[in-house]
């Protein structure tokens, strides 16, 4: 009897479009399936200790199942094991633990998504072009993986400038992009690895009259980014599908609670959204 069971979803953060989408998908699935879903997250995406504490506290609170997106792949191993040992069904979503002591991982390969973005970039600009990267908070592991994937795939084909962080602050992203445009007029493409940097850079391109001339390839699809795509400011969006992740995670947990076997890996796929004319 999985109906009425309590399911906790732990993201890497509490606000922002990405985690809100995860929360939405999870809550909707919970409603459909008759589960009680709660969403929790640490105050910042790098606060591993707070996430561990959250997980411990949720174990104490007697939830039946947990979907967690570890802030750090290794740091959560022990506590995830503890949860499993306590009889709680655990899956990871968006990113995985290194030990993989969970029932399933629901998400995409961040590095692969980054590589895909690089391949898209190479369709937009010639080899040897100069590319700037704007990232969120330094040290956020999923962003790091996306950039690594991008960098690997672009190796020898694109000239990458050092990534500049905006600390998750959109105004800072605008600022950083403007400064890069001043310092490096030769930049022909921006790669942004998250849903805050992307719109920030897009904004800078618009105000500097560089929209469309300097290309923008961003991770994530949000209303904000979709708008930029429609306006021709962004060229390609490479999106994981957070809402789907949340939903599939809760569905998988429901199956697990019902005693069914669930696959160890559920790929939510990467969606590439291009401008119609590109």
């Amino acid at each position: 009897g999985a109906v009425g069971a309590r399911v906790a979803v732990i993201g890497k953060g509490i606000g922002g479009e990405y985690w809100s989408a995860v929360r939405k998908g999870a809550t909707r699935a919970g409603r459909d399936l008759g589960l009680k879903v709660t969403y929790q997250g640490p105050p910042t995406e790098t606060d591993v200790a707070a996430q561990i504490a959250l997980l411990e506290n949720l174990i104490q609170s007697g939830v039946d199942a947990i979907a967690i997106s570890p802030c750090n792949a290794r740091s959560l191993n022990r506590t995830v094991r503890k949860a499993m040992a306590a009889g709680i069904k655990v899956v990871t979503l968006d990113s995985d633990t290194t030990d993989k002591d969970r029932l399933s991982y629901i998400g995409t390969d961040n590095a692969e998504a980054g590589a895909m973005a690089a391949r898209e970039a190479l369709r937009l600009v010639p080899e040897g072009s100069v590319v700037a990267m704007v990232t969120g908070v330094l040290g956020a592991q999923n962003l790091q993986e996306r950039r690594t994937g991008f960098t690997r795939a672009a190796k020898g084909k694109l000239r990458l400038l050092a990534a500049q962080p905006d600390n998750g602050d959109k105004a800072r992203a605008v600022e950083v992009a403007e400064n890069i445009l001043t310092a490096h007029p030769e930049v022909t493409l921006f790669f942004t690895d998250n849903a805050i940097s992307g719109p920030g850079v897009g904004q800078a391109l618009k105000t500097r009259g560089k929209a469309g001339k300097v290309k923008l390839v961003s991770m994530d699809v949000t209303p904000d980014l979709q708008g930029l795509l429609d306006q021709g400011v962004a060229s390609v969006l490479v999106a994981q599908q957070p809402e789907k992740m949340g939903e599939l995670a809760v569905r998988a947990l429901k199956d697990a609670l019902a005693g069914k076997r669930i696959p160890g890996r559920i790929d939510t796929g990467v969606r590439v959204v291009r401008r119609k004319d590109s």
Partner: protein
Amino acid sequence: MTGAMPTKIEAAGLRPWIRQSMPLVALLLLMGLFSLLSARFLSFENLGNIAVQSSHIGLIAVGMTFVIATGGIDLSVGSVLALSICAAGLTMAPAESGGAGQGVLAGWGAGLLTGALAGGVNGLLISRLKLSPFIATLGMMSVARGVANVLTDGMPVEDIPEGALALGTGDLAGMPWAVLLWVAAALLGGLVLGWTRLGRYACALGSNEEALRLSGVRPGPWKGSLYVLSGLLSAAAGLVFLGRVSNAQPSAGVGFELDAIAAVVIGGASLMGGRGSMAGTVVGVALMGVLRNGLVLLDVSAFWQQLVIGVVVVLAVLLDRWRTN
């Protein structure tokens, strides 16, 4: 703290303008350095960029100057900014985007009102309930962020009307509105600080609140209104910010308090209270903006930037101390 009375005697002879010009010297040194190292630094466009980029911190820092002059601190400015833009966004965004569709002016009004209210709560906690400003505004930092998130369900408010973006991206005869607003606030702030009772009492509150009280001045209302002012200016900064980023994010403004405080202190104010200079604050904000801009122009890696910014902040303040001791 007060023990400093006798040792500072030696500085008494120094003219205030020497005091105030030390941050400027630091700024000019830094600008000189960047001009030498990067041909692109000293362009009209780049300097204009720095000004626009600094304007929201500049607005916050105007209010922070008053608060710091009283010996207080306002840690809630970033969260209050976020809350204010969410209030503004929800008021002006069309109904399809979850807003009330009340138009730009109503939105701006709602934002400013929200900022003033949050500041008012800070002011009451501090002046009525005698909470230390650090704790009161630390609480508000958490509460305002929470309310912003609850109101917006953690999602940015989209579809801000075009008209509202002018504050961030538009200009008046080539002068960006954001910069105009900042300059106006700083000028007005300077006037208030030096030439009105509010400003002088701010310094008096920071220097010796009891003496002010014994002179028959009720400290509470004056102190309280300075926190309202800080909230109001955070909201104004938010409106500029909103114009620049074009949607209202409840996660906006994290860490702004530290930038603003650093700018005020670089400008020559003392966190013990009793003094502050609006010109100094403007220079402090500019210095931080130039530093960030220059380091990116010089292609300094993000990690080294953190390091350099920390060192320069300390050096800039040291330069000021060294000159006055």
